[in-house]
């Protein structure tokens, strides 16, 4: 156990991304990371199944991607900072992804913010 993370398990709704998680989900996170390359994202848009297969995603991961299950992906071990690159490709803003992770509609979520018109 990393002593710097002692007690983090008591903080709900939080998934610390550490080497152990990263090791298990490297292929998924690499698939998401590569969305910064225009060639990769165009190929994904043209044939998502082929690109997921090429990236070595397992069936669980493919399903999470197909359903754009943002919270499921985070729980599975996707790192948010590569997840947001995928969000750009499927035309979701970060604010929209945040709302979905909280289980709220976009408008409900924005009403919980101090400046709801900031979007």
């Amino acid at each position, binding site marked *: 156990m990393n002593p710097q993370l002692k007690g*983090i398990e008591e903080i709900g709704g939080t998934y610390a*991304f550490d080497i152990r998680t990263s090791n298990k989900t490297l292929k998924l996170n*690499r698939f998401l990371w590569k969305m910064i390359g225009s060639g990769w994202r165009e190929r994904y848009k043209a044939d998502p199944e082929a690109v997921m297969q090429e990236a070595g995603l397992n069936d669980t991961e493919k399903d999470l991607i197909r359903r754009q299950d943002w919270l499921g992906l985070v729980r599975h071990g996707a790192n948010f900072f590569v997840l*947001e690159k995928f969000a750009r490709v499927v035309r979701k803003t970060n604010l929209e992804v945040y709302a979905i*992770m909280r289980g709220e509609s976009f408008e409900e979520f924005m009403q919980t913010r101090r400046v709801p018109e900031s979007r």
Partner: protein
Amino acid sequence: MAKIIGCIGTSHVPTIGVAYDKGRQADPAWAPLFDGYKPVAQWLAEKKPDVLVFFYNDHATTFFFDMYPTFALGVGERFPIADEGAGLRNLPAIKGNVDLQAHIAESLVNDEFDLTIFQEKPIDHGCASPLPLLWPHDPDWPGTLVPIAINVLQYPLPTAKRCYKLGQAVRRAVESYPEDLKVVIVGTGGLSHQIHGERTGFNNEEWDLEFLRLLQFEPEKLTQMTHADYVRLGGAESVEQIMWLAMRGAMPEKIRKLHQNYYLATTTAMTLVLYEEGEEAPETAARATADASA
């Protein structure tokens, strides 16, 4: 001799870059943010620093988790701004001073900070989100950057104390550079925010203001906190505030605050603070804080 003339703490929220590119500076939802940068941009225009040392984090753009450096220093005359999935931004490539960067790398490694060196790599919003709000860029940037990336993504992260010590070592590195350059230290990230999991949207303004007080007057207390402490108090991604400690470590013991802007619009407490060496009473600094967030 090169000299550190001040430091700037700033958020590096990617949507600042998006709003900037869309020209939303006067939009009522964004003006409190953009207007807050004007006094700091003015200070930079007056002081004319040659160099900004940027403590920032790469958001798995330049580096991926198959080889992710704890500390990495960029060396090069130019660094392109990265495409992070939404295409390229209309900004000139970041400028660098290779001799200074190499000197800082040599000084840090000889000071027992065994850095990764990166070259000819793009740099993401960790630098590029706040930079155009601080410095003009038409047709080009007025000075050079020393980019120092810190791992705040994949645990184990360097401790808060280690980041503070890195800042102290950067001060020694800058002050041992023979040329008369004016240097400003920039620490990026935060303040409170969480952007993953069911706890997304967490903020803590009370803690943010306490963090700023401690940063100015009792930074050693912040160096004693664990990453879990930062996550609990400020949200998971606020742990990146350890990069502000690197900035603080590069400054002398006594600093005074020239400007502060705190704007929590949606999910991140977007904060900008400018400090110079000097005396300031905690009460004065606290009053400035209260005014800024009112």
